[in-house]
């Protein structure tokens, strides 16, 4: 049983061509300074009160209990099926649906889905339904008063646990591992929600927080007055509330994706990660998250100090501007997995329990077409995602600086922009594979 980067998969991407890496790096640096020097000098994006409201009927449907409970019940049924397949389906990862659903279809698929239709994992979170059924056991959530202070820290921790499972734990691709993780995750999350109240899920369920974070770059938002609105995704992102723990959440995402890239390089496989064991993987993952955290904290605090603002509030204030960069990394690293190995889910769904002769949708005999997307197209998507993420990130940071001080000097933003350039050059370097 092989374990590759990101949970499961039969292939990894080729290193991007050197020309792509160089053009990408050049474009990133050029755009960064152009934004600082040439772009607008007063805030341009709408704030948290902006947006074109959806019709009242649509909002009543989307916000209504029947719609949400229905989605949650459907998600719960799918999750139960996946756990059952993980426990009683084929023992071989290549033939068992569960690892492919968790690591590819769900985890990688959550990104495009949230980007297109908004915070789906929040609307359809099956754990919310379970909690609703069980909360009679704990009539008054004892920890509800302490929840706001925790911010998004629990979500960051919960995501770190998942990415460790996905990228480090040697038995990650075993169906049994998937079952134990899903059941354990549900029990822990519902238990904590009973303690802290239902709002726990938005702050402590890593998947829900991840989906909500990505949805910040979707056109779907909620205005200050509670109306669902369509608005510029950039305005949506800039309106992200600077909760405590938002920066750690973004840093975990960026750092873990960077580690995913690092673990595929020849440098890592023949150097620090040559042992290919839990210890080297854990240290590598933590090191990448730490490097990203230190760079980010330095850049934001230094920018704040130069602008004469309290450095302590800066990391949270600018965290939303790093979401596009993290998203660019994510797309670059998971696009081919979803497009190519993601086909496995749709093949195995025809016969989840591996019973002879069963072929529900007529796809069970199909083979994954690993040439469905050419390697040039993959490289183009990878570099494109990193560069677009970078450009949006720098743009948002500029806007954020103008919002926090009307007379913000371009030079004050330099440290943060330099850090963003470093993230992007690092991302391109990892795709190039050293």
């Amino acid at each position, binding site marked *: *049983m*092989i*374990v*590759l980067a990101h949970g499961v998969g*039969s*292939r*990894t*991407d*080729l290193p991007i061509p050197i020309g792509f890496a160089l053009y990408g790096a050049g474009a990133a640096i050029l755009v960064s300074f152009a934004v600082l020097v040439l772009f607008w000098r007063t805030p341009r994006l709408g704030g948290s009160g902006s947006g074109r409201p959806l019709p009242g009927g649509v909002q009543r449907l989307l916000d209504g209990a029947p719609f949400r409970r229905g989605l949650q019940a459907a998600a719960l049924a799918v999750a139960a099926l996946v756990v059952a397949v*993980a*426990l*009683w389906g*084929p*023992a*071989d*990862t*290549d*033939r068992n649906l569960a690892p492919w659903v968790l690591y590819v279809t769900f985890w990688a698929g959550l990104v495009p889905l949230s980007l297109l239709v908004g915070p789906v994992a929040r609307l359809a979170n099956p754990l919310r339904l379970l909690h609703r059924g069980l909360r009679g056991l704990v009539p008054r959530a*004892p920890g509800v008063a302490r929840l706001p202070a925790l911010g998004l820290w629990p979500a960051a921790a919960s995501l770190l646990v998942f990415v460790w499972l996905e990228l480090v734990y040697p038995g990650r691709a075993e*169906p*049994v591992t998937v*079952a*134990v993780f899903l*059941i*354990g995750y549900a*029990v*822990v999350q519902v*238990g904590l929600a009973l*303690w802290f109240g239902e709002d726990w899920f938005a702050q402590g369920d890593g998947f829900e927080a991840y989906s909500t974070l990505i949805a910040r770059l979707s056109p779907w938002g909620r205005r200050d007055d509670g109306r669902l609105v369509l608005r510029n995704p950039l305005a949506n992102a800039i309106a992200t509330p600077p909760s405590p723990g938002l920066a750690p959440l973004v840093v975990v995402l960026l750092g873990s994706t960077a580690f995913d890239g690092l673990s*595929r390089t*020849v440098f890592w*496989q*023949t150097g620090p990660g040559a042992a*290919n064991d839990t210890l080297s993987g854990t240290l590598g993952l933590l090191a990448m998250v730490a490097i990203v955290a230190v760079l980010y904290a330095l850049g934001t605090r230094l920018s704040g100090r130069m602008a004469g603002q309290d450095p302590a509030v800066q990391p949270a204030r600018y965290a939303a501007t790093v979401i596009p960069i993290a998203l660019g990394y994510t797309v670059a690293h998971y696009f081919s997995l979803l497009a190519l190995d993601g086909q496995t889910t749709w093949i195995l769904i025809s016969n989840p329990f*591996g019973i002879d002769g069963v072929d529900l949708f007529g796809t*069970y*005999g*199909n*083979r994954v*077409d*690993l*040439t469905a997307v*050419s*390697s040039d197209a993959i490289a183009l998507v990878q570099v494109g995602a990193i560069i677009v993420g970078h450009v949006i990130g720098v743009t948002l940071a500029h806007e954020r600086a103008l919002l926090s001080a009307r007379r913000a000097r371009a030079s004050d933003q330099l440290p943060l922009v330099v850090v963003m350039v470093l993230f992007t050059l690092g991302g391109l370097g990892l795709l190039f594979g050293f």
Partner: protein
Amino acid sequence: MSFRPARLRAALIGLALATVVTGCAGTDPEAAPGSSSSGSASSSASSAASSAPATSATPAAPAGQRIEVTVTGGQASGDTGRVPVPVGEHVVLVVTSDAPDELHVHGYDLGADLVPGTPATIEFDATIPGVFEVELHDAGTQLLSLQVG
């Protein structure tokens, strides 16, 4: 207050153990008869045209790229690490192991049984670009990564 988390943790561990145990009991009998390679081999006929893999041991006259690996005491030597291969190249992979195992080329999904001391050969045209691992299925040892492109 300190009771609840402790009980929760104990229950969790119990649950995890229970699922591991039932998982093993449920899956072990199935593991024996049908391995993955036999399952996918039967279905490969339908789409063989796309990648045209050839597992036969008949050595082609124009050699293509020959990759040789020897496994001794769990350690691989020879053409290990990242091995670049141009797209479309004919690849002859020869592996000799001192222990019985199953050779597996990922992505191309090709396999061969390894008999101690006897070289096993997998031949195929490298038509799918990407980086693919070649490993020992039972031991989990990675022999090399084939970089096609």
